[in-house]
C-alpha cells in the first residue's frame, strides 16, 4: 500500500529497542521480547540454511535414476537430517518464536511477555538442543527418518540416534516454554479495552498453536526418552524382540506429530489473516469463525493421528474412525480459506510483497489440504502411502503454507522490526520466483508418487526421471528465489529507507508506536477502543483515497 500522502515527517533517530543498549552482552542477556525474537530469527535462519543444503543434496542425487552422487546409507542420513532440521529447528519455532515473540506483547498493548526470563531461557534451550543435534550430525549423522520408527531406531540403526533424540528432546522444552508464555500473556497481559474479540486473529492462531505446543510436545518428549533408554539399556516397550510393540511408538509419535503439523501451519494462518484483511483494507469476513476455527483445528488435530497408521496393524475400524475425523479436521481449514476469499471479494486489494505471499498461501495451502484428503481416504492411502505423493502433500503445506506465511509476515512487519523498508520491487520479484520454483519442484512429485515412485530411496526406476529433473530444476529456482530476500533483508538493515511508524496505514496496535519500537513498546499503556480490523467505511475510503488517519478514532 503506497501512502497517498505522507502524514509523518521523518523523525530524528529516537531511542528504540535496538539502540537502547550496545554490546554482545546486552543481547545475550536481554529480557526484551523483541531482542529475543531477533536472536531466534538469526538462529532459525542458520538452521534453515543447513536444512537447505541437505535439500540441495537430495535433489542433486535424484537428478539421475542411479545412485551416483550419494550411497544409500549417506542418502538415508541426508533426508533424515533434512527433515529433522527443517521440522524441529526451523518450522516449529519459525513464526511463533520470531514474529509471535515480537508481536504478541505489542498487539495486546503489553510491555513484554509475562515471563521475560523464561523467554530468554527458551532460546538458550533451543540453542543447546541445536548444538547437540549438530554434534550428532557431525559425529556421523542419523538415518532413521525424522519419524524414528522402532525397532529400526532402537535396535538396528548404526547412527547417532540417541544424541539426535536428546537434541530434539531438549529443543522440545523451548517450544513448551514459548507456548506457556504466550498463553499466560494473552490471558493476563491485555491492555485495558483489548477484549478477546478485539484481538487480531494472529493472536487467536498463536493461542491455538500454544495449546498444541503444551499438550503435544511433552508426549513426544517422553516417547523419545523411552526410545533412548530402549536403545541404550535394552529395556523395551517398543521393540518386539524385547516384548514391546512398535505400533505403540507410532501412536505416541504421531499423537504429537500430527498436531505438530498444525504447530507449523496455524501461526502462518494467523499471519495470512492479518495480511488478507489489511491489504484488502476490509474487516475480515466472519471474524469469530476464523478465530474459533483455529481452536477447532487445535482440538480436532489431536484426534486424527491414526491416519499415519493406515498401513500398520491398526484395526480397520480404528482406521475408519481416523479417516472420518481427518475429513472433519479439514472443515475448519476450509472455513478459513472461504473467509479469506470472501474478505477479498470487492475489496481494494494492493499487491505488495506480503500480499503476494498471502495469495500464494491460499492457493498452495488449498492444494496441500485437498491432497491430504486423498491420503486420509483408506483405500487411496494404501496406494499413496510412502510415495512421493505424500512428500508433495506435506511440502505444499509446510513450504507452500507455513513458509509462505513466514516470508509474508517477515516482509509485512519488517519495517517495524528493523525500522527500515525492504526494496519493494525486489520483494515482488522474489515472491514470484519462489512461487514458480515451488510449484515446479513439487507438482511433478504428485504425479511421480501417484505413478508409484516410493519415497526415501536414493535410486529409482528410469521412467520417473522426467519428474525428478523437473523437480530439481524447480528446486534450483526456489533456492535462487530464497537467496534474494536473504540478501536484501540484510542489506536493508543498513541501507533501506527509514520506515515510518505506520507505513501501511493500519489500525493495529503494533503500528501505533514508533518503528522500531522503544524497549517498553508504548510510552504509556494504550486503551483500546476499536475493533481489530476497523477501517474507514467503504464509501468514504473511496472518496478520500483508501484511508483517512483522522477516522482512526483519535
Amino acid at each position, binding site marked *: 500500500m503506497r501512502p497517498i500522502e505522507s502524514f509523518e515527517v521523518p523523525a530524528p533517530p529516537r531511542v528504540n529497542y535496538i539502540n537502547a543498549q550496545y554490546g554482545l552482552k546486552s543481547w545475550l542477556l536481554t529480557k526484551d521480547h523483541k531482542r529475543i525474537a531477533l536472536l531466534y530469527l538469526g538462529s532459525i535462519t542458520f538452521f534453515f540454511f543447513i536444512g537447505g543444503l541437505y535439500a540441495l543434496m537430495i535433489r542433486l542425487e535424484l537428478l539421475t535414476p542411479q545412485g551416483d552422487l550419494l550411497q544409500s546409507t549417506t542418502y538415508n542420513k541426508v533426508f533424515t537430517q533434512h527433515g529433522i532440521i527443517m521440522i524441529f529447528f526451523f518450522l516449529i519455532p519459525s513464526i511463533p518464536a520470531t514474529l509471535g515473540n515480537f508481536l504478541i506483547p505489542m498487539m495486546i498493548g503489553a510491555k513484554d511477555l509475562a515471563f521475560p526470563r523464561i523467554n530468554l531461557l527458551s532460546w538458550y534451550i533451543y540453542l543447546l538442543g541445536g548444538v547437540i543435534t549438530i554434534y550428532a550430525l557431525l559425529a556421523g549423522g542419523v538415518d532413521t527418518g525424522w519419524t524414528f520408527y522402532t525397532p529400526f531406531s532402537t535396535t538396528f540403526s548404526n547412527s547417532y540416534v540417541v544424541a539426535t533424540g536428546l537434541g530434539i528432546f531438549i529443543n522440545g522444552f523451548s517450544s513448551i516454554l514459548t507456548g506457556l508464555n504466550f498463553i*499466560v500473556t494473552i490471558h493476563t497481559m491485555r491492555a485495558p479495552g483489548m477484549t478477546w474479540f478485539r484481538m487480531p486473529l494472529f493472536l487467536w492462531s498463536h493461542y491455538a498453536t500454544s495449546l498444541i505446543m503444551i*499438550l*503435544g510436545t*511433552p508426549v513426544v518428549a517422553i516417547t523419545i526418552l523411552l526410545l533412548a533408554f530402549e536403545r541404550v*539399556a535394552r529395556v523395551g516397550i517398543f521393540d518386539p524382540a524385547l516384548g514391546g510393540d512398535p505400533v505403540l511408538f507410532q501412536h505416541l509419535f504421531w499423537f504429537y506429530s500430527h498436531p505438530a503439523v498444525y504447530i507449523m501451519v496455524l501461526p502462518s494462518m494467523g499471519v495470512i489473516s492479518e495480511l488478507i484483511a489489511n491489504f484488502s483494507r476490509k474487516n475480515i469476513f466472519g471474524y469469530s469463525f476464523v478465530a474459533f476455527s483455529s481452536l477447532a483445528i487445535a482440538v480436532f488435530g489431536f484426534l486424527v493421528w491414526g491416519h499415519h497408521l493406515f498401513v500398520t496393524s491398526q484395526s480397520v475400524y480404528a482406521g475408519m474412525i481416523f479417516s472420518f475425523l481427518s475429513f472433519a479436521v479439514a472443515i475448519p481449514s476450509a472455513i478459513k480459506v472461504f473467509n479469506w476469499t470472501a474478505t477479498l471479494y470487492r475489496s481494494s486489494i494492493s499487491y505488495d510483497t506480503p500480499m503476494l505471499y498471502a495469495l500464494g498461501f491460499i492457493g498452495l495451502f488449498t492444494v496441500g489440504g485437498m491432497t491430504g484428503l486423498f491420503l486420509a481416504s483408506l483405500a487411496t492411502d494404501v496406494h499413496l502411502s510412502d510415495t512421493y505423493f505424500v512428500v508433495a502433500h506435506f511440502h505444499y503445506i509446510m513450504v507452500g503454507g507455513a513458509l509462505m506465511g513466514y516470508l509474508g509476515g517477515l516482509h509485512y512487519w519488517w519495517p517495524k522490526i528493523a525500522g527500515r523498508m525492504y526494496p519493494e520491487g525486489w520483494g515482488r520479484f522474489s515472491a514470484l520466483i519462489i512461487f514458480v520454483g515451488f510449484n515446479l519442484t513439487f507438482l511433478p512429485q504428485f504425479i511421480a508418487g501417484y505413478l508409484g515412485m516410493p519415497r526415501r530411496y536414493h535410486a529409482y526406476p528410469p521412467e520417473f526421471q522426467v519428474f525428478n529433473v523437473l523437480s530439481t530444476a524447480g528446486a534450483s529456482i526456489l533456492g535462487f528465489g530464497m537467496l534474494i530476500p536473504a540478501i536484501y533483508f540484510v542489506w536493508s538493515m543498513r541501507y533501506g529507507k527509514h520506515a515510518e511508524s505506520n507505513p501501511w496505514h493500519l489500525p493495529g496496535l503494533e503500528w501505533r508506536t514508533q518503528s522500531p519500537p522503544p524497549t517498553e513498546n508504548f510510552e504509556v499503556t494504550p486503551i483500546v477502543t476499536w475493533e481489530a480490523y476497523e477501517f474507514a467505511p467503504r464509501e468514504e475510503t473511496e472518496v478520500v483515497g483508501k484511508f483517512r488517519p483522522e477516522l482512526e478514532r483519535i
Partner: protein
Amino acid sequence: MAIEATTQPVHGHRSLQHHFENMEQQREAGTLGMWIFLVTEIMFFGGMFLAYALYRSLYPAAFASASNHLDITLGAVNTGVLILSSFTMAMAVYFTQVGKQRPQVLCLVLTLFLGLAFLGIKAVEYHDKYEDHLIPGRLIPGNPFNPAVQEEGQPIDHHKLHLLPGATLEKVEMFYWIYFAMTGMHALHMVIGAGLLTFLIIFSLKGRFDPEYHSPVEVVGLYWHFVDIVWIFLFPLLYLLGRHFEHG
C-alpha cells in the same frame, strides 16, 4: 491517538517486575503459568500411563505377578508421608498469605523433610529390587534382570518371584521397566521439588514473602501437590494391581 495514560500503576512493592501493572496481575500470571506447566506434566506422564495401561491389559498375569513382588508396606508408608507433606505445604502457603513468618518457615522445613524421607524410603525399595536382580535390561551394567523364581511346593521365599499362570519373565521385566521409569521420573520430580523448597526456605528466612507477595510459595505448592497426586495414582496402579489375582 488513542494512546492515553491509564490510571498510574500503584508502584511500591519491591518485588513488582517492570512489565506488570500491579501485584495482582503478576500473581495471576505466575499461578496460571504453573497450572499450564502442570498440564504439560500430565501429558508427559501420560505417555507412560498409556504404555502401562496397554501392556497391563495385554499381559495381566505377568503384571500381577510382578506387582505382587513390590513392597506394599513401604509403598503405603510413602503414600502417607507424601500426603502429610502436602498438608504441611498447604499450611506453609496459608501462613505466608497471612504473613506469619515463623510457622511458615517451619512448615516449609517439615515439607522438605517429608520429601526427603519419601526419597529415602524409595531408595531402600530400589535397593531391595537390586538385590533380587529385578533391575530390567542393562540399566545397571553387570546386573542383568535375573530374578529367582519360586518353584511349586518349595517353601515360600519372599525374595523369589512368584509367577502366576500365564506370566512370562519377559513381560515381568517389562513391568519392572515401566515401574522404574514411572517411579524414577516421579522421584526426579521430587528431587527438583526439594531443590525448590530449599530456595523457598532461604528466601522466607530472609523475610522476602509477605501477604502482598507470596506467589512463589503458592506456585511451588501447586507443583508439590501435583507430584503428590502423581504418586497417588502410581501407588494403586503399580503396587495394588495384583492383589485380587492372588486372593480373589
